[in-house]
């Protein structure tokens, strides 16, 4: 009987071995392959940095130990502020704004989703607010706040330091972003949960507080942390209205000594601040995915 398939007609076992070429990357050979490629990559990078003219000048400009050290401690004689001192400003601005943003973001989100008649006009206001501050570039917000408020003769409010205006601008913008994160989280709780809570006679407030919020928190934390990583970095933008924080201090150093190691040091300090947060956020996201995968089996 003839057949048009290629199936072997005899009892010979099928060929199951990988080809020679594929064997190179399998098993213990795979480890050897990955070690070889890593070593090659490191060698190329070192070669470029130490054996080429471009590499030398790159190291001198960005990784000069002498200037890295000056960047850290500053140089009062030449009016160069310490990059390390600058980061302290970034940190307190971040911490203060984080707390304010967590609070105002929640208030705005809450107002936007509640249906209490009393809050209807505020709901409109909150929506307009979120639209505006998500739509204007932050650079403009910080100029408007930092140069605008002092012109308004609003008493004490018009005589604050630039850092305070920076905080106000950051809080205004980030509260709008974060309110959206909260709102998505609150909407992620199934409607049946709300029906069940209301059916037990819980008020709208108690339903929110005891049933919706605790469940929303889990979905909200990773995107919230992502926004906080951006907030940490955007604290550098308060330098636009004259605050000498770490990136501005680095820029002054770079202009004074014509050396980029100041910028490098400032970047390293930022990384020391953001990387733990980034790792932690990714860890939470992965853990949540594993949980969901475990639940879906």
């Amino acid at each position: 009987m003839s057949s048009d398939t290629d199936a072997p007609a005899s009892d010979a076992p099928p060929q199951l071995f990988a080809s020679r070429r594929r064997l190179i990357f399998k098993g213990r050979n795979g480890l050897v392959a990955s070690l070889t490629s890593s070593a090659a990559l490191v060698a190329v990078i070192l070669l470029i940095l130490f054996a080429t003219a471009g590499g030398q000048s790159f190291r001198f400009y960005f990784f000069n130990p002498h200037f890295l050290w000056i960047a850290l401690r500053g140089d009062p004689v030449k009016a160069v502020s310490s990059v390390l001192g600058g980061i302290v400003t970034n940190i307190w601005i971040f911490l203060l704004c984080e707390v304010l943003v967590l609070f105002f973001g929640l208030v705005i989100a809450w107002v936007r989703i509640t249906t209490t008649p009393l809050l209807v006009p505020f709901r409109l206001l909150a929506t307009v607010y979120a639209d505006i501050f998500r739509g204007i570039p932050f650079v403009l917000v910080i100029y408007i706040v930092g140069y605008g408020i002092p012109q308004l003769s609003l008493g004490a409010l018009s005589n604050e330091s630039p850092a305070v205006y920076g905080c106000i601008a950051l809080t205004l913008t980030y509260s709008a972003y974060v309110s959206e994160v909260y709102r998505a989280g609150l909407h992620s709780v199934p409607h049946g949960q709300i029906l069940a809570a209301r059916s037990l006679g819980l008020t709208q407030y108690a339903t929110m507080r005891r049933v919706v919020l605790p469940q929303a928190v889990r979905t909200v934390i990773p995107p919230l942390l992502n926004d906080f990583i951006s907030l940490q970095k955007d604290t550098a933008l308060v330098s636009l209205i004259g605050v000498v924080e770490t990136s501005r201090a680095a820029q002054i150093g770079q202009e004074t000594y014509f050396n980029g190691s100041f910028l490098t040091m400032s970047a390293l300090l930022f990384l020391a601040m953001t990387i733990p947060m980034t790792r932690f956020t990714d860890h939470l996201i992965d853990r949540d995915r594993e949980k969901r995968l475990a639940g879906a089996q």
Partner: protein
Amino acid sequence: MNDEVLKMTSVVKRFAHHEVLRDVSLTLHRHEVVCLIGASGSGKSTLLRCANLLETIDGGDIELFGQSLLDPRIDPDLVRRHMGTVFQSFNLFPHLSVLENIALGPVRALKRPFDDVRDEAMALLARIGLQDRAREFPDRLSGGQQQRVAIVRSLAMRPSLLLLDEVTSALDPTLVGEVLDLLTDLATSGTTMLIATHEMSFARDVAHQVAFLDNGVLVEQGPPDQVFERPRHDATRVFLERVR
């Protein structure tokens, strides 16, 4: 003596222009079990949601213990505390333990001290044989166990009546029995219940009254042997033949 607990009179409910309930009148007396039957989409869930004010009605009246719930002074939260509601999909709170699920209403709505509530909740759990699962989270329980917890959660509010919406429809067939047994047990001990269900033999055995809803119209209502054995309307007969 007037023992009417819930009385719906000519209730009309519309979604946009779609009339989902048309002139529905239904009375639930103390210690009475009324089973609401009808094809899916006939308006059973809507009727139950109107009863506990999760929906507003477009006509007719609903009275609880002789007081109209349309009175503007009525507080829906207070009304709902007298009506236990159980859903097809359990809707237990996943972030709370079994015990906390049961205690939430009494503690947060009735403001009763947790210590009293806990003892009562444990007694309720003992009644369904789940007292040693009190500290666990709902997702550790089977569907039948979850639904029984949802039922005692509504009982913990000491409601005057229970509204149950197809509480066995989402369950694996092997788990339906334990939930129906609990309902039978509640009926025997005199719990007032309005039960939307597709379990015809349960309705026949347990209900005092059976009401048949067809496309938003309450076509027929009467004792189970009358509705099931000698239905007066063709629509009822057709429906019963289809589900049999």
